[in-house]
């Protein structure tokens, strides 16, 4: 159904302006939940969180609670965490192992593959009426496990996950693959969950390649909190990329990122200066990765956002962050921290300590992000403020398509990634077809 909101006037990509309404208005929030979060592929969790049959992890999709479950046969499912009888949450533990999800309200129980099993007094009260087969937990329409990560969509028409990712997969791979280039192999070592009073899209935009906000992190750059900080290095991470060509890439399905193309002959830059063994480990990984991947090893990740709300840090630190909208002005953030599962204990220890001092509400870097997002949201709520759009005119037109890598590639800091993101965002809110959402050329109807 077409929306009544003047979306195309509010998202004016020719002029490079976007209305503040989309960041503060309850109408846009509702439309996002109805038309975007019901269709897009969303990140749910990681297989390392549910290694065994019966393992579960309670997650979120949009503003709703879902259960990521590995059934007794080992298959992965994602269900709405709500009893089919009166809606009570059937699981209020965050993570664990079970043979049944038993609703506390009237004791309907569901197996780990979602089927309704137990209905108290079934024979006396329901016989001949209630068909258990029809009252399973509500399961997502599509589910994909990719290199350990689990993604889901409520839309049966959604394209396969890899088609949805398109060229973004090359960048996401740099987050999910082992540091030495072996495919996959990551594990989640912890999940931060916190609530902040800002619109979720500010957070997504930050990771789309907003390198321009660097000045807001001046304090950590001055004092040095990076992996070599204890050895006296300034900055908030090691300078691995100083010889690389930075690229800001937009993909037709709305994904965007900031990555780096290193020269083919690049050599390892010393990192983790206060931990020689860790430095040696990453030196080994660097050359092993080059050996395995060849030219493909040139691509290294900075930050990115898989449309709509899954952001990543690719390397220092490394993890996925999901921005769950609670309201137009409130977001619940979940950050999943990643390491190579088979990395030595000392490496994991140095990484987790760096992740904690960098990331999230206790992280020295990201605290300043939260401050920005909060006050940007608050100061955009006013009647007068809402009359004036945000400016997205940076580096208009300054990109090449599929050169030198797939996507619209800018070699300078750009707002092409958010312009592209909001083009796709508007297409969802306008009820666009999947061809339109993936940026495919329109298909002519054969019959005409």
């Amino acid at each position: 159904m077409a929306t009544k909101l003047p979306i195309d006037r509010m998202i004016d990509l020719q002029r490079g302006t976007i209305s503040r309404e989309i960041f503060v208005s309850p109408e846009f929030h509702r439309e996002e939940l109805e038309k975007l979060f019901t269709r897009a592929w969303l990140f749910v969790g990681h297989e390392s969180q549910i290694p065994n049959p019966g393992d579960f992890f309670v997650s979120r999709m949009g503003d709703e609670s879902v259960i990521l479950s590995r059934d007794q046969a080992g298959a992965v499912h994602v269900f709405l965490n709500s009893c089919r009888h009166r809606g009570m949450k059937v699981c209020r533990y965050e993570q664990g192992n079970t043979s049944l999800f038993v609703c506390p309200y009237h004791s309907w129980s569901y197996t780990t593959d979602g089927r309704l099993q137990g209905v108290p007094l079934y024979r006396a009260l329901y016989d001949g009426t209630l068909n258990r087969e029809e009252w399973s937990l509500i399961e997502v329409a599509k589910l994909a496990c990719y290199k350990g990560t689990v993604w889901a969509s409520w839309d049966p028409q959604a394209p396969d996950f890899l088609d949805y990712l398109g060229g973004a997969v090359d960048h996401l791979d740099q987050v999910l693959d082992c540091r030495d280039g072996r495919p996959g192999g990551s594990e989640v070592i912890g999940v931060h969950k916190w609530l902040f009073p800002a619109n979720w899209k500010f957070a997504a935009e930050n990771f789309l390649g907003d390198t321009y906000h660097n000045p807001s992190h001046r304090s950590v750059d001055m004092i040095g909190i990076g992996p070599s900080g204890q050895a006296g290095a300034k900055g908030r991470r090691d300078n691995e990329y100083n010889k690389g060509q930075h690229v800001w890439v937009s993909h037709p399905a709305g994904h965007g990122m900031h990555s780096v193309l290193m020269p083919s002959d690049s050599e390892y830059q010393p990192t983790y200066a206060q931990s020689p063994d860790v430095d040696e480990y990453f030196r080994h990984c660097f050359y092993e990765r080059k050996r395995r991947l060849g030219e493909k090893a040139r691509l290294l990740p900075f930050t990115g956002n898989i449309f709509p709300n899954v952001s990543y840090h690719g390397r220092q630190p490394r993890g996925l962050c999901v921005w769950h909208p609670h309201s137009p002005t409130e977001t619940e953030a979940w950050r999943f921290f990643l390491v190579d599962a088979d990395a030595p204990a000392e490496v994991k220890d140095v990484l987790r300590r760096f992740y904690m001092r960098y990331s999230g509400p206790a992280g020295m870097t990201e605290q300043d992000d939260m401050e920005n997002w909060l006050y940007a949201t608050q100061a955009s709520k006013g009647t007068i403020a809402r009359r004036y759009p945000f400016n997205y005119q940076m580096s208009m037109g300054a990109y090449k398509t599929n050169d030198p890598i797939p996507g619209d590639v800018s070699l300078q800091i750009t707002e092409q990634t958010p312009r592209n993101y909001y083009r796709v965002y508007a297409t969802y809110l306008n009820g666009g077809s999947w061809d339109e959402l993936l940026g495919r050329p329109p298909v002519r109807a054969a019959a005409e």
Partner: protein
Amino acid sequence: MRPLAWYQLREEIEDFLYLEADLLDQRRFTEWLDLLAEDLVYFMPMRRNVKFGQHAERENTRQGDGISWFDEDKWTLSKRVEQILTGVHYAEEPLSRVSHMVSNVRLLDVRPSVEDAHEVTVGCRFLVYQNRGEYENFTFIGRRTDELRRVADSWQIARRELILEQNVLLAKNLSVFF
């Protein structure tokens, strides 16, 4: 009946904890750092919703393993102070107004003896109130266990464990010291 020395020691420890709270609330962060031992462990786990019977094993994330809110040393805390002092750490610029309340103080262990106390394990409750900008209010309540070590005529904090009574953190930041 406890010996008089026990009450004297408790009062001395309480005084120390209140002095520490004052240093933080008066924003004397550098002086506060001087109260921390060089080998300090500063730990705040995340709390999980777990099934009855699994609390001891699974409720809290563990020190030294995986991700917590804080699992750090004196160097990292010194960096946090240094960051505030840059004047461009926007999450604390302008500075928050903070009050630390300390209560339910109990001496849990005294070594080697009450009469000759060199190390004390002390439990308390904390209530940290943070007010920021114009309208931001955060209240952090929880249990704290400190390992204190006698140095000269005062004490140093060698270990601090902070059990915050929240699951999803209901604050945008943990930019205050606990």
